[in-house]
């Protein structure tokens, strides 16, 4: 901020009113315009039509005719009076909280571990993480399906061999809880690399002298961690947590493909799946649009912290 305040006046002080300068003032707008136009065209119009469709009765007939029948807030009314919506919302919140909690705790632990291990292990572990990071989600889903299949899945074999109990032909997809549990393992596994590598990058910004000085002063290691390390990595942890909340709340691909369309029932709905089933599969686009809007509102409310943080970062420095 301080440096920005020093540099900008230099510019404006020199500025005399000539058309050339007016032209220069327009430069940033000209630069930004294409992105705004494209995003406006691709997103603005759909968002507008999202609202329109949400206020319409819009099924397959209307899709073919390209015209809905205005019914006011009836779609919202039916969604908000649907007990499945509230159960799904609650389930999704618990699901997202679990995923984010696990990702952040394990992620922080792994990042701290990376600092403590020998170089060759660190290189090995980071390469592994990067490899995992690069796996397309759809591919990962197929691998999960293959590992946990009940006939001869390798997971059951390993658990049985390690004497965790008899998992011979154990069906991991039996109850909604275990289904979502498996989705959680898949998501946490896939999310860890980004989180670990980012936190590790933040940890490397912790001034070594500070840690050493604190240690010489006789501070215990967890005190050093709390007083020196945590403040430095807190901004990064905050951003990662809010990003993870947003991602995990909106999970669709992994859950839908891992559980599998035939096994999708209201007892294992997440918000993304509920929306998809109601709006797209049942071809009730009006209701689907209403659910989308409710979801967008919830996400927007959750992301206020993140956006404010990014705005601070986004200031010209």
């Amino acid at each position, binding site marked *: 901020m301080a440096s920005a305040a020093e540099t900008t006046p230099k510019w404006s002080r020199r500025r005399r009113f000539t058309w050339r300068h007016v032209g220069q003032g327009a430069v940033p707008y000209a630069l930004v315009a294409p*992105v705004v136009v494209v*995003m406006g065209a691709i997103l603005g119009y759909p968002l507008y039509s999202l609202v329109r469709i949400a206020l319409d009765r819009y099924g397959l007939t209307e899709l073919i005719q390209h015209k809905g029948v205005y019914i006011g807030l009836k779609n919202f009314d039916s969604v908000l009076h649907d007990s499945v919506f509230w159960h799904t919302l609650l389930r999704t919140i618990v699901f997202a909280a679990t995923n984010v909690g696990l990702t952040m705790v394990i992620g922080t632990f792994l990042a701290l571990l990376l600092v403590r291990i020998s170089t060759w292990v660190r290189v090995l572990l980071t390469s592994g993480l990067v*490899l*995992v990071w690069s796996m397309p989600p*759809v591919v990962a889903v197929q691998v999960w399906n293959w590992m946990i299949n009940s006939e001869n899945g390798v997971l059951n074999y390993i658990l049985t061999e390690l004497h965790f109990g008899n998992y011979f032909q154990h069906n991991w997809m039996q109850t909604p809880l275990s289904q979502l549990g498996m989705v959680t393992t898949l998501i946490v596994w896939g999310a860890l690399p980004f989180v670990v590598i980012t936190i590790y*990058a933040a940890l490397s910004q912790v001034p070594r002298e500070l840690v050493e000085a604190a240690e010489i002063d006789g501070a215990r290691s967890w005190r050093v961690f709390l007083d020196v390390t945590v403040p430095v990595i807190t901004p990064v942890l905050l951003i990662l947590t809010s990003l993870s909340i947003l991602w995990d709340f909106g999970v669709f691909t992994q859950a839908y493909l891992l559980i599998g369309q035939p096994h999708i029932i209201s007892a294992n709905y997440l918000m993304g799946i509920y929306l998809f089933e109601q709006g797209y599969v049942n071809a009730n686009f009006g209701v689907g649009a209403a659910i989308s809007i409710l979801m967008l509102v919830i996400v927007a409310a959750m992301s206020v912290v993140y956006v404010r943080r990014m705005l601070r970062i986004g200031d010209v420095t």
Partner: protein
Amino acid sequence: MSVRNARRNAWNVVGVAIFVVMIFPVFWMVSTAFKSDDQINALTPTWFPLHPTLEHFRAALAKPYFWDDVKNSVIVVLVTVTIAMVLAFLAAVALSKYRFTGRKLFIVLVIGVQMLPGAGLIIPLYVVLARYHEVNTLTGVILVYLTGVLPFSVWTLRGFILGIPKDLEEAAMVDGSTRLGAFARILLPLVAPGLVATSVFAFITSWNEYVWLSYFLGTSRQTDWGALMAASTLTAIPVVVFFLLIQRRIAFGLTAGAVRG
């Protein structure tokens, strides 16, 4: 010293164990792709296929439409990435080098779009594209991916541009060039690596999306695990290769703002 070493060795063991757990699914995918059907269907797993077979890869490649799919994905991804890079670079320059009214609004727009749950836009996009008969056409797909790729490209490129020392740019301006001239001659060459990294990342994102879509459109549930794992391996290869090439830069670009913020 020895206590310290012992402790480090203990952490090393933990590190290796975690590596094994994390990497196992990837290993299992590749290893399955090379196994014979007998080994795949056996109750006792074979860890390493000692007599690797290529039959599953052959089967995956011989599938009808495989090469059509590849061609389409390459077209979609290339067009998307090219458009996204040009537009995002311009906007990133504006964000990192200018203060202007509406700047905050623009940042909120970019971040906001990035956070929209994809599922939330499926319905309007579908309805809108249906109206213009663009569902399942390449143009429609490109338009949709552009929204997915643009926001983070703007944000990441901004990080790269900020990483360029201010002195260089000021030196160019003292030489009498205009601001735009300074950008073109000084900024562009310096930011080129960042541009490459971001476009590869955009490539990966849209490639992953495309894979998602093609799986999604053909939802028959196969249990030919060998062929499936071979296809999965083939799908992952371009992503992995590109990702390994740019990973360091992209991690920097993504975190530069956050860490310095």
